[in-house]
């Protein structure tokens, strides 16, 4: 078994019980940006007159777990919702700059908004199963994109439920309402639902904060497993969680990106005074 990669002993102890997470197959490559699918350039975002995101420039590495950390109200959720343009429905929204996904600007008038969203699975803080059966929840996205073939849908549902380890638990009640599941199960269901439309990214906004420790661990394990195939961006308030699973960390403060870099750098050797203070728990 590999040892935990971070040198700082005081921080490494945070992650004690999570040795399972060290099966990270990509670890040896380090954090080289072999590909970076998502690039944010000079993003400024206003809601009414308030300047929420200030001159954000970012690159999110492909097939890695990127954690966005920062104090409450610094714009983490807003940034995440900008990635799939869910923010568009906010009253008084205005943005400038560009976000490039696969070299297409998502703000471009020609870009179809549903295509962008299909690429970005969103996992919210509280699981939100749609008012339908477990089966229909998973099949929903595919149906909306025009998939009608029953066999294909059955296959997708089974595959995705297996991917999140829910299949054994629910295979006998696929047609029961999804809201009957436990909260932890619901969150895995929501993850599976997002995966079913074959996204390239998984955006998770404090996706474990409403869950019990076991379910929360379950989701974390899933993220680590899923990064083989997906680029994962998560907002978290739990520094321990970031430390456990992040490959790349972005620290935000009052709408600005203060520092971004590999988890190793940010946690053990932050360049900015503000980052260091935040990590030491001076403010939250």
């Amino acid at each position, binding site marked *: 078994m590999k040892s935990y990669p971070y040198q700082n002993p005081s921080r490494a102890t945070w992650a004690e019980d999570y040795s399972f997470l060290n099966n990270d197959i990509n670890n040896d490559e380090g954090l080289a940006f072999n590909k970076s699918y998502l690039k944010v350039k000079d993003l400024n975002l206003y809601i009414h007159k308030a300047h929420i995101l200030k001159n954000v420039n970012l690159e999110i590495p492909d097939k890695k777990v990127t954690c966005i950390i920062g104090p409450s109200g610094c714009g983490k959720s807003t940034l995440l919702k900008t990635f799939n343009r869910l923010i568009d429905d906010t009253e008084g929204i205005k943005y400038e700059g560009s976000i490039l996904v696969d070299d297409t600007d998502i703000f471009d008038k020609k870009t179809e908004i549903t295509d962008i969203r299909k690429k970005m*699975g969103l996992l919210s803080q509280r699981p939100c199963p749609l008012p339908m059966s477990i089966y229909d929840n998973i099949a929903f996205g595919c149906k909306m994109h025009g998939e009608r073939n029953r066999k294909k849908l059955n296959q997708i549902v089974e595959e995705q439920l297996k991917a999140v380890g829910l299949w054994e638990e629910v295979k006998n009640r696929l047609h029961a309402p999804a809201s009957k599941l436990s909260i932890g199960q619901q969150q895995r269901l929501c993850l599976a639902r997002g995966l079913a439309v074959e996204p390239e990214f998984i955006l998770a906004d404090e996706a474990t904060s409403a869950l019990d420790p076991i379910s929360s661990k379950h989701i974390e394990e899933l993220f680590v497993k899923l990064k083989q195939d997906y680029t994962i961006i998560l907002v978290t308030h739990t520094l321990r969680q970031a430390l456990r699973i992040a490959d790349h960390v972005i620290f935000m403060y009052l709408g600005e990106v203060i520092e971004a870099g590999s988890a190793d750098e940010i946690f053990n050797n932050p360049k900015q005074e503000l980052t260091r203070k935040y990590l030491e728990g001076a403010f939250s």
Partner: protein
Amino acid sequence: MSSNSSYRILKNKIAGGLMFSITVFSVLLVVLIGLGLYLKSVPIFEHNSFWHLIKSSEWRPGNNQFGFLPFIAGTLWITLIAVILALPIALLSALFLTEFSKSYLKKWVFTALDILAGIPSVVYGVWGTLFIVPWISEKLAPHFVEYSTGYTVLAGGIVLGVMILPLLISLFVEIFSAVPREFRDASLSLGATKWQTSKHVILRKTFPGILAAVALALSRAFGETIAVLMVCGNLPLLPHSLFDSCYPLPALIANNYGEMLSVPLYESALMLAAFLLFIVVFIFNASSRAVIYRIERKFK
């Protein structure tokens, strides 16, 4: 200290008891009204069986013949048409307002709806007489029947539909707005369009609520009197098409209450009309509650 606390508890008990009796009283009031109407209509049962009264369409008060079928049919027809016309319009407008439009537009439309809802029903009646009745008589009916006065089931349905529209729209907007943002986010972030989200998530989630709103609007529509009375012709005959006149129960009561004393059983007959209306609304509400309850359990 302890006396203070026992005083608080006493007060709590009194308040609870008082509120309970007031609640019981308001429920009792409804029962009493129903009972009063029933007792007043008893004399008519001495000559006719209840079923005969409901099934017969002979209405000749002079001959002591009281067949209520035309009135019941008229009421049901008009209400049904009103809902069929108003429901899709109200659903689509409400979906537009909550899911598609900007909030300033919502404000404007709401002001307009409030005004519409506040217009006295006699004004709707006048509007119906001046515009809908001639339109049906001259433009629409000739395509379907040889002759129609325009004072028809259809006119009543249209006027009533317009009248319940503001109520339905504001109920629906309220219901749709109560759906948490997360449901929309979940659906939209899977790449569903707004329309797909409205159709498959919002409407589905709010289905029990929509039924409840329709039930409320229907109960309102059953009892609407003046406007309908002005446009539906008031002939005590069983309507056979949308272009026949009809005579709803509330109109019967309103039109005849003054002159009923000349025929001994007339008063009793009108009371029965009121009682029937009462029962229709009651049964309707009770059954829709039951349906909604079952659906809610299934959807939760």
